[in-house]
Protein backbone atom coordinates (compact mmCIF):
# COMPACT_ATOMS: atom_id res chain seq x y z
CA UNK A 1 0.00 0.00 0.00
CA UNK A 2 1.45 3.41 -0.86
CA UNK A 3 2.35 5.40 2.23
CA UNK A 4 0.28 8.39 1.13
CA UNK A 5 -3.09 6.67 1.66
CA UNK A 6 -2.28 5.28 5.09
CA UNK A 7 -4.82 6.20 7.71
CA UNK A 8 -5.78 5.38 11.27
CA UNK A 9 -9.31 4.11 11.92
CA UNK A 10 -11.44 4.95 14.96
CA UNK A 11 -10.81 1.53 16.47
CA UNK A 12 -7.07 1.80 15.89
CA UNK A 13 -7.04 5.21 17.49
CA UNK A 14 -8.95 3.77 20.47
CA UNK A 15 -6.52 0.89 20.80
CA UNK A 16 -3.51 3.15 20.64
CA UNK A 17 -5.09 5.59 23.08
CA UNK A 18 -5.75 2.86 25.67
CA UNK A 19 -2.23 1.52 25.35
CA UNK A 20 -0.54 4.91 25.56
CA UNK A 21 -2.69 5.88 28.54
CA UNK A 22 -1.79 2.73 30.42
CA UNK A 23 1.91 3.18 29.79
CA UNK A 24 2.21 6.93 30.35
CA UNK A 25 -0.94 8.18 32.06
CA UNK A 26 -1.46 10.56 29.13
CA UNK A 27 -4.98 10.34 27.74
CA UNK A 28 -5.69 11.79 24.30
CA UNK A 29 -9.18 13.28 24.02
CA UNK A 30 -10.97 12.91 20.69
CA UNK A 31 -10.02 16.51 19.97
CA UNK A 32 -6.37 15.38 19.78
CA UNK A 33 -7.16 12.85 17.09
CA UNK A 34 -5.52 14.74 14.23
CA UNK A 35 -2.36 15.37 16.25
CA UNK A 36 -2.07 11.70 17.28
CA UNK A 37 -2.83 10.29 13.82
CA UNK A 38 -0.28 12.53 12.17
CA UNK A 39 2.50 11.44 14.48
CA UNK A 40 1.56 7.77 14.39
CA UNK A 41 1.64 7.83 10.59
CA UNK A 42 5.01 9.54 10.67
CA UNK A 43 6.43 6.78 12.83
CA UNK A 44 4.82 4.07 10.66
CA UNK A 45 6.43 5.49 7.54
CA UNK A 46 9.74 5.90 9.31
CA UNK A 47 9.79 2.29 10.52
CA UNK A 48 8.32 1.05 7.22
CA UNK A 49 5.30 -0.66 8.73
CA UNK A 50 2.48 0.16 6.37
CA UNK A 51 -0.46 -0.95 8.47
CA UNK A 52 -1.39 0.11 11.98
CA UNK A 53 -1.64 -3.50 13.02
CA UNK A 54 1.87 -4.47 11.97
CA UNK A 55 3.31 -1.27 13.40
CA UNK A 56 1.48 -1.68 16.71
CA UNK A 57 2.63 -5.29 17.07
CA UNK A 58 6.21 -4.31 16.30
CA UNK A 59 6.16 -1.42 18.78
CA UNK A 60 4.31 -3.38 21.45
CA UNK A 61 6.69 -6.37 21.49
CA UNK A 62 10.01 -4.73 20.71
CA UNK A 63 12.21 -5.90 23.56
CA UNK A 64 14.29 -2.72 23.67
CA UNK A 65 11.21 -0.48 23.87
CA UNK A 66 12.97 2.01 21.59
CA UNK A 67 10.07 2.56 19.25
CA UNK A 68 7.74 3.22 22.15
CA UNK A 69 10.19 5.87 23.39
CA UNK A 70 10.27 7.39 19.92
CA UNK A 71 6.50 7.64 20.03
CA UNK A 72 6.62 9.27 23.43
CA UNK A 73 9.13 11.77 22.07
CA UNK A 74 6.92 12.82 19.21
CA UNK A 75 3.64 12.75 21.16
CA UNK A 76 5.05 15.12 23.78
CA UNK A 77 6.25 18.40 22.39
CA UNK A 78 9.28 19.36 24.41
CA UNK A 79 10.46 22.86 23.87
CA UNK A 80 12.28 24.85 26.49
CA UNK A 81 11.97 28.56 27.16
CA UNK A 82 11.92 30.90 30.16
CA UNK A 83 8.83 30.60 32.37
CA UNK A 84 7.49 27.58 30.51
CA UNK A 85 4.43 26.36 32.46
CA UNK A 86 4.49 29.62 34.38
CA UNK A 87 1.74 28.47 36.75
CA UNK A 88 4.20 26.08 38.41
CA UNK A 89 6.66 28.88 39.21
CA UNK A 90 3.74 30.93 40.52
CA UNK A 91 2.66 27.98 42.64
CA UNK A 92 6.23 27.73 43.97
CA UNK A 93 6.51 31.34 45.15
CA UNK A 94 2.88 31.96 46.09
CA UNK A 95 2.12 28.70 47.90
CA UNK A 96 4.67 25.90 48.17
CA UNK A 97 7.70 27.76 49.55
CA UNK A 98 5.52 29.59 52.06
CA UNK A 99 4.37 26.25 53.41
CA UNK A 100 7.93 24.94 53.61
CA UNK A 101 9.28 27.90 55.57
CA UNK A 102 6.50 27.41 58.11
CA UNK A 103 7.67 23.96 59.16
CA UNK A 104 9.50 24.41 62.48
CA UNK A 105 12.54 22.42 61.35
CA UNK A 106 13.10 24.87 58.49
CA UNK A 107 13.48 28.03 60.58
CA UNK A 108 16.74 29.83 59.85
CA UNK A 109 17.84 27.24 57.35
CA UNK A 110 18.97 27.59 53.75
CA UNK A 111 16.29 26.24 51.41
CA UNK A 112 17.50 24.10 48.54
CA UNK A 113 15.99 23.62 45.09
CA UNK A 114 17.06 21.02 42.52
CA UNK A 115 16.25 21.45 38.84
CA UNK A 116 16.75 18.33 36.73
CA UNK A 117 17.20 18.16 33.78
CA UNK A 118 18.66 21.64 33.58
CA UNK A 119 18.63 21.41 29.80
CA UNK A 120 20.04 24.73 28.56
CA UNK A 121 19.25 26.55 31.81
CA UNK A 122 15.88 28.18 31.19
CA UNK A 123 14.22 26.28 34.02
CA UNK A 124 16.70 26.86 36.88
CA UNK A 125 17.09 30.51 35.86
CA UNK A 126 13.30 30.91 35.72
CA UNK A 127 13.25 29.62 39.30
CA UNK A 128 15.93 32.14 40.30
CA UNK A 129 14.11 35.04 38.62
CA UNK A 130 10.76 33.98 40.13
CA UNK A 131 12.27 33.95 43.61
CA UNK A 132 13.87 37.37 43.23
CA UNK A 133 10.89 39.01 41.58
CA UNK A 134 7.87 37.37 43.16
CA UNK A 135 8.80 35.85 46.51
CA UNK A 136 8.96 38.54 49.19
CA UNK A 137 10.59 36.20 51.73
CA UNK A 138 13.72 36.00 49.59
CA UNK A 139 14.87 39.04 51.63
CA UNK A 140 15.00 36.87 54.73
CA UNK A 141 15.59 33.31 53.56
CA UNK A 142 18.70 31.94 51.86
CA UNK A 143 18.12 29.72 48.86
CA UNK A 144 20.52 27.45 46.99
CA UNK A 145 19.70 26.25 43.49
CA UNK A 146 21.37 23.17 42.02
CA UNK A 147 20.69 22.28 38.37
CA UNK A 148 21.80 18.99 36.84
CA UNK A 149 21.85 17.30 33.50
CA UNK A 150 23.38 14.14 32.09
CA UNK A 151 24.69 16.08 29.08
CA UNK A 152 27.84 18.14 29.76
CA UNK A 153 27.37 20.21 26.57
CA UNK A 154 24.15 21.75 27.81
CA UNK A 155 25.79 22.46 31.17
CA UNK A 156 28.37 24.62 29.41
CA UNK A 157 25.59 26.49 27.67
CA UNK A 158 23.84 26.98 31.02
CA UNK A 159 26.96 28.60 32.46
CA UNK A 160 27.32 30.93 29.46
CA UNK A 161 23.68 31.98 29.80
CA UNK A 162 23.15 33.11 26.19
CA UNK A 163 19.54 33.08 25.01
CA UNK A 164 17.58 33.94 21.89
CA UNK A 165 14.51 36.19 21.64
CA UNK A 166 12.44 33.07 21.34
CA UNK A 167 13.70 31.73 24.70
CA UNK A 168 12.73 35.02 26.30
CA UNK A 169 9.30 35.37 24.69
CA UNK A 170 7.52 35.07 28.06
CA UNK A 171 9.88 37.43 29.90
CA UNK A 172 8.58 40.98 30.37
CA UNK A 173 10.56 43.90 28.92
CA UNK A 174 11.16 45.17 32.43
CA UNK A 175 12.78 41.93 33.59
CA UNK A 176 14.72 41.65 30.37
CA UNK A 177 16.14 45.13 30.91
CA UNK A 178 17.17 44.43 34.45
CA UNK A 179 18.64 40.93 34.14
CA UNK A 180 19.78 40.48 30.53
CA UNK A 181 22.44 42.19 28.41
CA UNK A 182 22.04 42.39 24.64
CA UNK A 183 24.71 40.36 22.82
CA UNK A 184 24.39 40.93 19.09
CA UNK A 185 21.40 40.12 16.94
CA UNK A 186 18.59 38.40 18.87
CA UNK A 187 20.97 37.24 21.59
CA UNK A 188 20.80 38.04 25.26
CA UNK A 189 23.09 37.10 28.12
CA UNK A 190 21.78 36.59 31.63
CA UNK A 191 23.67 38.77 34.11
CA UNK A 192 26.59 37.28 36.02
CA UNK A 193 24.92 37.51 39.45
CA UNK A 194 22.08 35.22 38.46
CA UNK A 195 24.35 32.84 36.61
CA UNK A 196 26.47 32.62 39.75
CA UNK A 197 23.45 31.72 41.86
CA UNK A 198 22.93 28.30 40.24
CA UNK A 199 25.31 25.39 40.69
CA UNK A 200 25.38 23.25 37.54
CA UNK A 201 26.36 19.60 37.87
CA UNK A 202 26.46 16.55 35.67
CA UNK A 203 24.47 13.60 37.00
CA UNK A 204 23.05 10.34 35.72
CA UNK A 205 19.92 9.43 37.71
CA UNK A 206 20.52 5.73 37.05
CA UNK A 207 23.91 5.82 38.75
CA UNK A 208 23.62 5.01 42.45
CA UNK A 209 27.06 6.36 43.34
CA UNK A 210 26.48 9.65 41.50
CA UNK A 211 23.11 10.36 43.06
CA UNK A 212 24.23 9.54 46.59
CA UNK A 213 25.24 13.10 47.45
CA UNK A 214 22.01 14.71 46.18
CA UNK A 215 20.27 15.20 49.52
CA UNK A 216 18.48 17.73 51.68
CA UNK A 217 16.45 19.43 48.97
CA UNK A 218 13.12 21.13 49.66
CA UNK A 219 11.91 21.39 46.07
CA UNK A 220 12.65 19.34 42.97
CA UNK A 221 11.62 20.38 39.49
CA UNK A 222 11.74 17.36 37.21
CA UNK A 223 9.65 18.21 34.21
CA UNK A 224 9.34 16.18 31.04
CA UNK A 225 12.12 13.75 31.87
CA UNK A 226 10.60 10.68 33.54
CA UNK A 227 8.16 10.22 30.68
CA UNK A 228 11.12 9.32 28.51
CA UNK A 229 12.36 6.66 30.94
CA UNK A 230 11.37 3.01 30.91
CA UNK A 231 9.70 1.51 33.98
CA UNK A 232 12.85 0.42 35.89
CA UNK A 233 14.56 3.78 35.28
CA UNK A 234 11.45 5.66 36.43
CA UNK A 235 11.23 3.57 39.57
CA UNK A 236 14.91 4.25 40.31
CA UNK A 237 14.51 7.98 39.64
CA UNK A 238 11.52 8.21 42.00
CA UNK A 239 13.62 6.53 44.69
CA UNK A 240 16.47 8.98 44.11
CA UNK A 241 14.07 11.92 44.43
CA UNK A 242 12.54 10.51 47.59
CA UNK A 243 15.98 10.29 49.19
CA UNK A 244 16.98 13.70 47.82
CA UNK A 245 14.05 15.48 49.47
CA UNK A 246 13.70 16.63 53.06
CA UNK A 247 10.53 15.37 54.76
CA UNK A 248 7.72 17.64 53.57
CA UNK A 249 9.59 18.60 50.39
CA UNK A 250 7.85 18.80 47.01
CA UNK A 251 8.33 17.61 43.41
CA UNK A 252 6.89 19.34 40.38
CA UNK A 253 6.50 17.20 37.26
CA UNK A 254 5.75 18.30 33.68
CA UNK A 255 2.19 19.36 32.85
CA UNK A 256 1.33 16.13 31.02
CA UNK A 257 3.14 13.88 33.50
CA UNK A 258 1.66 12.18 36.50
CA UNK A 259 3.18 10.34 39.44
CA UNK A 260 0.46 7.72 38.89
CA UNK A 261 2.65 5.69 36.53
CA UNK A 262 5.78 6.16 38.63
CA UNK A 263 5.44 5.85 42.40
CA UNK A 264 3.02 5.96 45.31
CA UNK A 265 5.61 7.13 47.85
CA UNK A 266 4.59 10.77 47.50
CA UNK A 267 1.42 12.48 48.67
CA UNK A 268 -0.60 14.15 45.95
CA UNK A 269 -1.04 17.82 46.90
CA UNK A 270 -3.42 20.16 45.20
CA UNK A 271 -2.41 23.82 45.35
CA UNK A 272 -4.48 26.61 43.80
CA UNK A 273 -2.21 26.83 40.79
CA UNK A 274 -0.72 23.36 40.36
CA UNK A 275 -0.49 19.78 41.53
CA UNK A 276 2.68 18.82 43.37
CA UNK A 277 3.91 15.65 45.05
CA UNK A 278 5.07 15.77 48.64
CA UNK A 279 7.41 13.50 50.56
CA UNK A 280 5.49 12.66 53.76
CA UNK A 281 6.52 14.66 56.83
CA UNK A 282 6.95 11.70 59.19
Amino acid at each position, binding site marked *: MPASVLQITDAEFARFRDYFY*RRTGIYFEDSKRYFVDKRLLERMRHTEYYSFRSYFTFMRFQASGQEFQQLVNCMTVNETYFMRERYQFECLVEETLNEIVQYPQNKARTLRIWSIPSSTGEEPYSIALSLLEYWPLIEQVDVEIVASDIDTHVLDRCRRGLYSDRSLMHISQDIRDRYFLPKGANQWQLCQDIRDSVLFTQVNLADLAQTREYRHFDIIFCRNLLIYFDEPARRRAAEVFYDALNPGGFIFLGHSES*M*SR*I*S*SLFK*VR*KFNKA*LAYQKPLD
Partner: protein
Amino acid sequence: MKQVLIVDDAVTVRLYHRHLITELGYPTSEAENGVEALEKAMQASFALMLVDVNMPKMDGYRFIEEVRKNPDLQSIPIIMISTESEAKDIQKAYSVGANFYLIKPTDPKRLQDLVTLILGQSKQEI
Protein backbone atom coordinates in the same frame (compact mmCIF):
# COMPACT_ATOMS: atom_id res chain seq x y z
CA MET B 1 -24.45 16.75 38.71
CA LYS B 2 -23.24 13.87 40.85
CA GLN B 3 -20.20 12.26 39.30
CA VAL B 4 -18.88 8.74 39.90
CA LEU B 5 -15.17 7.86 39.90
CA ILE B 6 -14.37 4.38 38.53
CA VAL B 7 -10.99 3.03 39.65
CA ASP B 8 -9.84 -0.18 37.98
CA ASP B 9 -6.81 -1.25 35.96
CA ALA B 10 -8.85 -3.37 33.51
CA VAL B 11 -10.11 -1.29 30.64
CA THR B 12 -13.17 -3.48 29.95
CA VAL B 13 -14.19 -3.27 33.60
CA ARG B 14 -13.98 0.52 33.43
CA LEU B 15 -16.03 0.49 30.22
CA TYR B 16 -18.62 -1.85 31.71
CA HIS B 17 -19.03 0.06 34.94
CA ARG B 18 -19.19 3.31 33.00
CA HIS B 19 -21.92 1.81 30.83
CA LEU B 20 -23.95 0.76 33.90
CA ILE B 21 -23.55 4.09 35.68
CA THR B 22 -24.30 6.29 32.67
CA GLU B 23 -27.43 4.19 32.08
CA LEU B 24 -28.60 5.56 35.41
CA GLY B 25 -27.88 9.08 34.23
CA TYR B 26 -24.72 9.83 36.22
CA PRO B 27 -21.52 11.05 34.54
CA THR B 28 -18.29 9.20 35.28
CA SER B 29 -14.56 9.70 35.38
CA GLU B 30 -11.99 6.93 35.38
CA ALA B 31 -8.59 6.13 36.83
CA GLU B 32 -6.27 3.18 36.34
CA ASN B 33 -4.79 3.01 39.83
CA GLY B 34 -4.98 4.55 43.29
CA VAL B 35 -2.48 7.34 42.67
CA GLU B 36 -4.26 8.51 39.56
CA ALA B 37 -7.58 8.25 41.39
CA LEU B 38 -6.26 10.51 44.18
CA GLU B 39 -5.09 13.04 41.58
CA LYS B 40 -8.53 13.04 39.97
CA ALA B 41 -10.39 13.12 43.27
CA MET B 42 -8.51 16.26 44.29
CA GLN B 43 -9.33 18.06 41.08
CA ALA B 44 -13.04 17.31 40.81
CA SER B 45 -15.86 16.45 43.16
CA PHE B 46 -17.25 12.93 43.29
CA ALA B 47 -20.41 11.60 44.90
CA LEU B 48 -19.29 7.96 44.78
CA MET B 49 -16.26 5.83 43.98
CA LEU B 50 -16.11 2.25 42.64
CA VAL B 51 -12.74 0.77 43.59
CA ASP B 52 -10.94 -2.39 42.50
CA VAL B 53 -8.47 -4.17 44.84
CA ASN B 54 -5.47 -5.24 42.75
CA MET B 55 -3.98 -2.35 40.81
CA PRO B 56 -0.43 -1.20 40.04
CA LYS B 57 1.31 1.58 42.01
CA MET B 58 -1.43 1.87 44.64
CA ASP B 59 -3.88 -0.92 45.43
CA GLY B 60 -7.51 -0.36 46.38
CA TYR B 61 -7.04 -0.83 50.13
CA ARG B 62 -4.33 1.77 50.33
CA PHE B 63 -6.32 4.11 48.13
CA ILE B 64 -9.31 3.90 50.47
CA GLU B 65 -7.06 4.50 53.48
CA GLU B 66 -5.68 7.64 51.80
CA VAL B 67 -9.20 8.84 50.97
CA ARG B 68 -10.38 8.32 54.54
CA LYS B 69 -7.37 10.29 55.86
CA ASN B 70 -8.05 13.25 53.57
CA PRO B 71 -10.47 15.82 55.05
CA ASP B 72 -11.70 16.86 51.59
CA LEU B 73 -12.48 13.32 50.45
CA GLN B 74 -13.16 11.27 53.56
CA SER B 75 -16.96 11.31 53.42
CA ILE B 76 -17.29 10.07 49.82
CA PRO B 77 -19.08 6.68 49.74
CA ILE B 78 -16.98 3.84 48.32
CA ILE B 79 -18.02 0.52 46.78
CA MET B 80 -15.14 -1.92 46.62
CA ILE B 81 -15.52 -4.34 43.70
CA SER B 82 -13.16 -7.28 43.80
CA THR B 83 -12.50 -10.74 42.42
CA GLU B 84 -11.66 -11.81 45.95
CA SER B 85 -14.60 -13.37 47.72
CA GLU B 86 -13.16 -14.76 50.96
CA ALA B 87 -14.44 -13.44 54.27
CA LYS B 88 -11.00 -12.02 55.14
CA ASP B 89 -10.94 -9.96 51.93
CA ILE B 90 -14.38 -8.50 52.63
CA GLN B 91 -13.41 -7.79 56.23
CA LYS B 92 -10.25 -6.04 55.09
CA ALA B 93 -12.25 -3.81 52.72
CA TYR B 94 -14.57 -2.68 55.50
CA SER B 95 -11.72 -2.23 57.96
CA VAL B 96 -9.93 0.26 55.68
CA GLY B 97 -13.15 2.21 55.13
CA ALA B 98 -15.14 0.80 52.21
CA ASN B 99 -18.89 1.26 52.63
CA PHE B 100 -20.01 -1.58 50.36
CA TYR B 101 -18.45 -4.67 48.80
CA LEU B 102 -19.39 -6.37 45.54
CA ILE B 103 -17.79 -9.48 44.08
CA LYS B 104 -16.69 -9.71 40.45
CA PRO B 105 -17.84 -10.41 37.85
CA THR B 106 -20.16 -7.50 38.52
CA ASP B 107 -23.86 -8.30 38.64
CA PRO B 108 -25.35 -5.33 36.76
CA LYS B 109 -28.59 -5.13 38.68
CA ARG B 110 -26.90 -5.28 42.09
CA LEU B 111 -24.50 -2.51 41.13
CA GLN B 112 -27.19 -0.29 39.66
CA ASP B 113 -29.52 -0.82 42.63
CA LEU B 114 -26.71 0.02 45.03
CA VAL B 115 -25.68 3.15 43.13
CA THR B 116 -29.29 4.33 42.99
CA LEU B 117 -29.64 3.71 46.70
CA ILE B 118 -26.46 5.62 47.58
CA LEU B 119 -26.84 8.57 45.23
CA GLY B 120 -30.57 8.81 45.86
CA GLN B 121 -29.94 8.92 49.60
CA SER B 122 -27.27 11.55 49.60
CA LYS B 123 -29.39 13.83 47.40
CA GLN B 124 -31.03 15.28 50.51
CA GLU B 125 -27.73 15.92 52.23
CA ILE B 126 -26.26 18.01 49.42
